[in-house]
């Protein structure tokens, strides 16, 4: 998919949404799309989506960046606009093309280029060009590291695994589970139904995720070398989420609008919450803080949740957060609560697998998780469901969905 920029993924996905939901584009009031690594050519990806010919040109649109929770935030923004009465119909989602990350020039080379464009005379230009050194031409690739600590995501996960005592085997078991459930969902069509086939200029139509491994075994996974701490580490490529390309879009409406337009909602948004912690601490523990907030806002306890969708950045991260949810001590120390957040049942957790298998296109993931949760809530006739997403910068996002 490296030929396809994120904006095109977002546009195609939205066109598919229009058709699948038989949507009249004139009805849409606003759009929000998440993207984490924007292209300098289309910094506001959401506006490029709202300028699709299926819509009037008058739909304002904003792009949202809350790292891996960007699409979730886009959905939350849309819901807020509707709740405020500022909009009736909103399209929200996200997109990312991680095979299309911008590669930058070195600072010195960029400065020279800018100066060249301002230079008036030939001699000025020649002087500037003469000043370029070979090392200036080495491109700079953006790293997935915290600007505040310099620690990469993988290093953070590695640190969490060690500090929380998450074993390599537990991580591998969890990752294998993710692949098996995603494979089962693909097999029976539940995952496939959520995918818009993509027709590339060349090659076969793309209609399945290529990260899901049907043939994985614990033995094979155990053979992989740790990626971030070669000697004593436990985080490997097999128990981390692959960085992929993708887009997601959901249709949000006020209850009135849905009724008058004849749409039956999959689910209602009951509440959401965001939280942040010191990135120098356990970077990906945000959900453990956001979830109790969202549950409080929903007026619910964990026991009332029929389904939970946790974004799987790393198996170590999911298991660390589960450990925190289930720990009375953690709740007392970190949240000042007397009770643990809740007991996590594997039967209702990520029942179609998660990002470890399906992949993690940063800006898009939140929309996928939201749709999967809503669809499964319908299928299992569940009243309440929870989403949790960890995000760069020590942030967490949580949302409670409800069926009425």
């Amino acid at each position, binding site marked *: 998919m490296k030929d396809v920029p994120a904006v095109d993924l977002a546009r195609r996905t939205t066109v598919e949404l229009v*058709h699948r939901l*038989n949507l009249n584009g004139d009805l849409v009031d606003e759009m929000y799309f998440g993207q984490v690594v924007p292209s300098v050519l289309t910094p506001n990806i959401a506006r490029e989506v709202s300028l699709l*010919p*299926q819509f009037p040109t008058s739909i304002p649109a904003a792009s949202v960046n809350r790292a891996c929770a960007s699409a979730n935030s886009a959905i939350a923004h849309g819901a807020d606009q509707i709740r405020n009465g500022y909009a009736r119909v909103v399209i929200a989602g996200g997109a990312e093309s991680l095979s299309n990350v911008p590669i930058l020039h070195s600072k010195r080379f960029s400065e020279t280029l800018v100066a060249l464009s301002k230079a008036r005379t030939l001699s000025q230009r020649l002087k500037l060009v003469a000043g370029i050194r070979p090392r200036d031409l080495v491109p700079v690739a953006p790293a997935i590291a915290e600007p505040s600590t310099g620690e990469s995501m993988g290093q953070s996960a590695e640190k969490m695994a060690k500090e929380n005592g998450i074993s390599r085997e537990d991580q591998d078991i969890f990752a294998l589970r993710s692949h098996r459930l995603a494979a089962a969902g693909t097999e029976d069509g539940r995952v496939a139904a959520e995918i818009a*086939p993509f*027709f590339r*200029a060349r090659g076969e*139509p793309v*209609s399945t995720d290529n990260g899901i491994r049907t043939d994985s075994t614990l033995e094979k996974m155990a053979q992989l070398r740790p990626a971030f701490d070669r000697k004593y580490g436990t985080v490997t490529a097999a128990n981390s989420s692959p960085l992929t390309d993708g887009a997601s879009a959901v249709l949000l409406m006020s209850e009135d609008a849905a009724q008058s337009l004849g749409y039956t909602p999959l689910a209602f948004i009951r509440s959401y919450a965001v939280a942040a912690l010191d990135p120098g601490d356990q970077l990906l523990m945000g959900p453990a803080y956001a979830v109790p907030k969202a549950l409080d806002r929903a007026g619910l306890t964990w026991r009332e949740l029929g389904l939970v969708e946790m974004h799987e950045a790393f198996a170590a991260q999911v298991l660390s957060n589960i450990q925190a949810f289930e720990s009375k001590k953690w709740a007392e120390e970190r949240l000042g609560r007397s009770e643990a957040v809740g007991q996590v049942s594997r039967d209702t957790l990520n029942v179609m697998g998660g990002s470890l298998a399906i992949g993690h296109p940063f800006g898009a993931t939140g929309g996928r998780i939201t749709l999967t949760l809503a669809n499964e809530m319908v299928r299992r006739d569940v009243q309440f469901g929870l989403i949790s997403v960890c995000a760069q910068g020590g942030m967490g996002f949580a949302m409670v969905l409800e069926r009425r």
Partner: protein
Amino acid sequence: MTIFTTDTQNGIARVVFDLPGESVNKITAEVRNELEPLLSQLRGDANVRAVVFMSGKKDNFIAGADIDEFVRLKSSDEALQLVRGGQQLVNRFGQLDKPVVAAIHGACLGGGLETVLACAYRVATNHPKTQLGLPEVQLGIIPAAGGCQRLPRLIGVRAALDIILAGKVVPARKAHRLGIVNELVHRAILEEIAMKAARKLAEGWKPRQRKGGLASALLDKNPLGRRVVFATAEKQVRNKTGGHYPAPLAALDAIRHGLRHGIDAGLDREAKHFAELGVGEVSRKLVQIFFATTAMKKDTGVEGPAPEVQTVRNLTVVGAGFMGAGIGGTAVLRAGVDTRLRDTNLDRVKSGVDTARKILKDRLKRRRLTKYEHRRLDALVSGGTDWSGLGRSDLVVEAVFEDIDVKHQVFRELETQVSDCCVLASNTSTIPIARIAEVTRHPGRVIGMHFFSPVEKMPLLEVIVTDQTEPWVTATSVDFGRRMGKTVIVVADHPGFWVNRILSPYLNEAGRMVKEGVPIEDIDRSMKRFGFPVGPITLLDEVGLDVAQKASLVMHEAFGDRLTPIDGLVRMIDDNRLGRKNGRGFYRYDKGKRKGVDPSVYEVFNVDARPVPDGDIEKRLVFAMLNEAARAVEEDVVRSPRDGDIGAIFGIGYPPFLGGPLRQLDDLSAGHAVDALERLSQAYGERFAPTPVLRQMADSNLRFYPNS
């Protein structure tokens, strides 16, 4: 009546041309009468140092000369008088003792362009509506108000020939590149810039003349080079027109004569040619076609008051094969509708989506679309294997396999998903629409939309109505077909509709000749000479022998012995010869390129090729078609002879200079046609027996077009 308003400021007279009661400016007798004294007055006015000439219409400069006036011409003398008047007027523009600047926004065509060519300076807007050209030859005449003289002098012989011989109209940007206009500006500052140029010219400014470069020096300015250019152009024209259209050659002669003997001699030559062509048969026919297609653009497709038209915004095409994808891609390109292609598996959908997108991509490559327009249109193409998007569609066009059971299943499923105001169309060429409609709950919204392949290139659309089709459904389909850029005829739900109906006996006859041993080259050559773009055997190869065979069986079933299919066709198909598409047909193909006739075809037909008298080839083929056309008109297959003729010209390439099969029957007279058919009938068989309506017409001396 005031056509021109003039006001003078600071020595610059601003003349605004605004023909009352018309949406566009054209050069009529009144215009000429009012312009004459105005020019005299400007000449005499010492306060006026320069003139800016512009249009008062919204998006039009001058559409050309008044075509009605031209049609009324009775004789060469009248034509000569008309053209001389025009030439003198344009000359006076050029010979005014003060510079004239033309400020051009909107179409500037024919006599309009010839007028501004005589001006000292031309400023045009860079607006898409601004187009310049000399389309005269398309009406069988030539630019005769100095266009053949001034354009080559302005932009060089080669560029001028390119425009004049093909009757081209070019966008403002290209006109600027060619040097037809001196400056290209935004619409908001057109007048200001024209005024500025007028002031500078009044002060003696000499605008820089374009220099043509080496090629121009060799070919445009050098008599020897010019001779080569003219010889090449003449050869191309003869090739293209087959000698049937005299106008391009006349224009060529006027240009050559003018360059050799000076502008006055050139003008004389222009006038002479115009006087002959203007009252000639070819021009008459081309003008009739022009009027017919213009009238058809306003035709709702139904009798009586115009029904409410549903403007199609969302289209679903069922069946993403070559035809379906062509319909989808053309709909996106021309009508800008959101188009969903549906087929049964993803690979077929993808191939359809690719084909549709390729139509857009080709336009981008040929710079007919900008990058941004292309991006917008490309997003209108999507596809899937389910019925998603159907609920929001205003029109569904079914283009699945030609099998009644498959079509019935599609229409049954469609009806459960679509909204009440969605039109259901079938692109069938062989199955009666009424039979398809049988399985629907609302047969009133079922209609036929018969496109021709390749859809993006073929200009005709047959809209087929059943007894039950509701008027709004017809009007909606006609309106949409027109938005797709098609010339639309509404035809009755009879086997073969119109185009295939008249084509069927013609192709059968061609096949019969092959069986008789008439050389295939002779058959095709004969019809090309007659004026068809390709001969019947070539056409069979292009259409596909399996497709033709299938259609001919349907026709045989419907009409009996008269339309007995060629039995050799089955043997051709058994021999795996399907025509161009599999590289084996009556002709040989090598990597998609056509080579000569495949001599082994005669073995398939079990015959030895032997030449026969040429005249009968043409007569047999043409009269097979003419007879059937008369019969179909009698059966009310088309709504008017006009629709029938336009359908034949745009659907089959019936020679435009003959005006169509029904025009031709009129020109021959029914009596003569009956005689010819009787002779053919005796010589070749009952199938040529003149249809009763032709006999009646012959007896009562009637015509298909009573008034002209």
